[in-house]
């Protein structure tokens, strides 16, 4: 969800391409202080997967090898694009990193989507728990549709985030783009979720989150038209959350079904760590998570507090401009 709007905002670097590197920088600055924390969720998520479901982690990561390789390469250069883009004062330099940003927005969304599609649809797994499905077979219609849905949904999500965080003509742009993206996202999303429900879900109960996701997505259209930006962003957030619940709920008790022989499937039970390790991790989560959340919330408050003080009419961009200015004065002495 969090990474989702980061990717979506990066995709918006493409939609605002013609406005030049300065404007593209403004777009990126809306996620300047938060993307890093969001990326840490992904990394910590990977480590938690390793700790709690080592068999799943091992089968998934070795089985989807080339897709993950691509994802890793993009994630690496994406971090550098964020950190280094504004370190050299040259339009060519910035434009170069902006290309990386565009790739860094679209490619991971597509790759996550394809990977998720294959996880819920199932792949061939042998008795050693090695994936035997080839790369070409991973690019099946269902998985590709899943990839498309991820791209459209994150794009829409990031665009709505922008409407909240930016001012002036860029906000108009974002509104327009949100309107354009909403219908394709609804159609593709509905097709994907229906297909999933009929072909791959293990329970009709997932119809509930599927319906919630569909309704939330449809609600984006009127909300965006009436400029209820907060509610529209809330709607895509709900849609993504509901879709995730539907996908994992429909998969349960499997985490990676084997299509060739159900006996080789990875389940919540046979892919997880021992009960003892899971208890250890749960205790660690309960102790550490509140601390992490506390200082993350505090971070947001530190920056928000300023806005209230100065009675700034539009929080997003101006706040970030000020932060950026402070940064410049601190580190760029020229």
């Amino acid at each position, binding site marked *: 969800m969090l990474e989702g709007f980061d990717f979506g905002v990066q995709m918006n670097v493409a939609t605002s391409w013609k406005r030049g590197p300065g404007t593209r920088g403004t777009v990126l600055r809306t996620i*300047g*202080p938060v993307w*890093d*924390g969001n*990326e*840490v969720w992904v*990394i*910590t998520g*990977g*480590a*938690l997967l*390793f*700790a709690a479901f*080592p*068999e799943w982690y*091992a089968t998934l*990561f*070795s089985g989807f*090898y*080339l897709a*993950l*390789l691509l994802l*890793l*390469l993009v*994630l*690496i*250069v994406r*971090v*550098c694009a*964020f*950190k*280094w883009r504004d*370190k*050299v004062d040259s339009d060519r330099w910035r434009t170069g990193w902006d290309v990386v940003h565009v790739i860094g927005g679209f490619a991971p969304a597509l790759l996550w989507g394809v990977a998720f599609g294959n996880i819920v649809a199932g792949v061939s797994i042998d008795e*050693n*728990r090695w994936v035997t499905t080839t790369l070409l077979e991973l690019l099946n219609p269902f998985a590709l549709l899943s990839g498309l849905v991820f791209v459209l949904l994150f794009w829409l999500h990031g665009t709505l985030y922008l409407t909240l965080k930016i001012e002036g003509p860029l906000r108009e742009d974002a509104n327009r783009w949100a309107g354009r993206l909403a219908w394709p996202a609804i159609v593709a999303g509905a097709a994907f979720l229906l297909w999933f429900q009929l072909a791959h879900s293990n329970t009709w109960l997932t119809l509930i989150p599927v319906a919630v996701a569909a309704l939330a997505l449809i609600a984006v259209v009127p909300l965006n038209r009436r400029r209820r930006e907060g509610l529209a962003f809330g709607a895509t957030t709900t849609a993504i959350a509901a879709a995730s619940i539907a996908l994992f709920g429909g998969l349960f008790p499997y985490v990676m079904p084997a299509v060739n022989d159900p006996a080789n499937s990875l389940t919540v039970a046979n892919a997880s*760590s*021992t009960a*003892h*390790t899971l208890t*250890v*991790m749960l205790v*660690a*989560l309960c102790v*550490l998570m509140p601390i*992490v959340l506390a*200082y*993350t919330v505090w*971070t947001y408050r*530190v*920056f928000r507090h*300023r806005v209230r003080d100065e009675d700034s009419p539009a929080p997003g961009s101006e706040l970030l401009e000020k*932060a950026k200015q*402070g*940064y410049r*004065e*601190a*580190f*760029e*002495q020229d």
Partner: protein
Amino acid sequence: MEALDLARWQFGITTVYHFIFVPLTIGLSLLVAIMQTRAVFSKDPVRKDAWTRMTKFFGSMLIVNFGIGIATGIVQEFQFGMNWSEYARYVGDVFGAPLALEGLAAFFLESVFLGLWIFGWGKMPEKIHLLTIWAVAVGTTLSAYFIIAANSFMQHPVGAMLNPETGRAELDPSQGSILAVLTNVTAMAAFPHVVSGAWLVAGAFLTGVASWHMVRHHNRARALGLDTEEGQEQHLAARDLYRPTVRFGVVAMFISALVLVVSGDFQAKIMFEQQPMKMASAEAHCDTDSEVPFSILTVGGPNAFSEDCDGVTHLIEIPYVTSILATNDPFAELQGVDDLNAQYKEQFGETALDIRGNEVEVDYRPNLFVTYWSFRLMMGLAAFSGVLALWALWATRGKGDKARTTGSKLFQWFAVLSIPMPFFANSAGWVFTEIGRQPWVVHPNPLDPTVRLMTLQGVSANPGWMVLTSLVAFTLVYGVLAVIWFQMMRKAALKGAPLAKRDPDTGEPDTPTLSFDY
């Protein structure tokens, strides 16, 4: 080459690359935090100004370095699943926990607070802002701790047992479980060694960069004449701005050297108990013997680049040193590589089953050439920093008005060339400890050798071309990023900190505070 060799090369390349940036981040975040502390608490306006400028100057380089360290760290985590899936299955129940703890306890801390520190200049009270960089320093050090704990499990597994049903290692509550993993004596020895290695990197970096600027300003001052206003400005930049940083870096190097030697000695002693093969191969000590000397130069036989002991000849030796290093007893008998090999073959078998169930012959000797020379490289390169520290101290001797700076070009270039040496020493140390563990990926604990795994049993089942693809892709992308990183660091380092304009009457610099007003 087979998938196994390629996967090993990939792990080696990506790890060494990752560990170029990591020690600088760990060490520099601490040193920047200390510099900012001095800036905040200095009463003397000249000092306050100097430390403020140095905090920002080195802070800007810390930021450049931080990103690439994070980016390359993601690869390390994913790699266990991609290339070493069978290893991940075998140890996941134990090994995943410290990695997840690193994310939860350390990674969030350093990332969130680095953001706060960068964007928080002038937005929060000075002392709260100071706390954010300390949080970063604590976070990076804590990260190192958890990763070392995970690595130490591979060197010396504790807190776990082998589940005979699944054939996998599992956390064992009766052996202390996760607490035993986190307080592993191997980790307790390695952690101070690695962290002080990071301080050495950062200390040499600080002294190297600051010395370069100090000499430059010193010479400019002399060229302009000390009686001119510009000359005086240059003179003060050398004496009040860069000289204290040069000396601060020297202090960091001395402290780290002390910790390095003490922890290294301790590590060597427990390694002789836990991994005698590794220490024997560090010395290329082939036959069991007492009164073992320490050799400085050794040549090999016809197969010098292998595990082979034939023809290994020690040319220059210092008597007793290896025996002392191992046990504090100059006459101690130490087992040789060949005898250990025979002993292990008896204990663990002459063959092992690989992931596909094929019998493979096993040699329990690591590559002697690599272990022998990486061990010496690690210590030899670190000595470079010693020379730099002493020279810098001598060049900047004196106090108060007699405080000296130097204009020596020779010193200037030596200082700059010394910067990369501790980086290489760090890499050599890792190469030594990881290659020295071979053929094991999880080295058996001599007290309970049931939890153990050979490297050839840990690799994924993917074909060689796949691993080769990723090896080539990572190497290329890493190469490009390294060039960009180097250029950016170089540019930032050469730019230097802006000089203070002094008030002609009071002699006070113009920007004495850390916060900014809008």
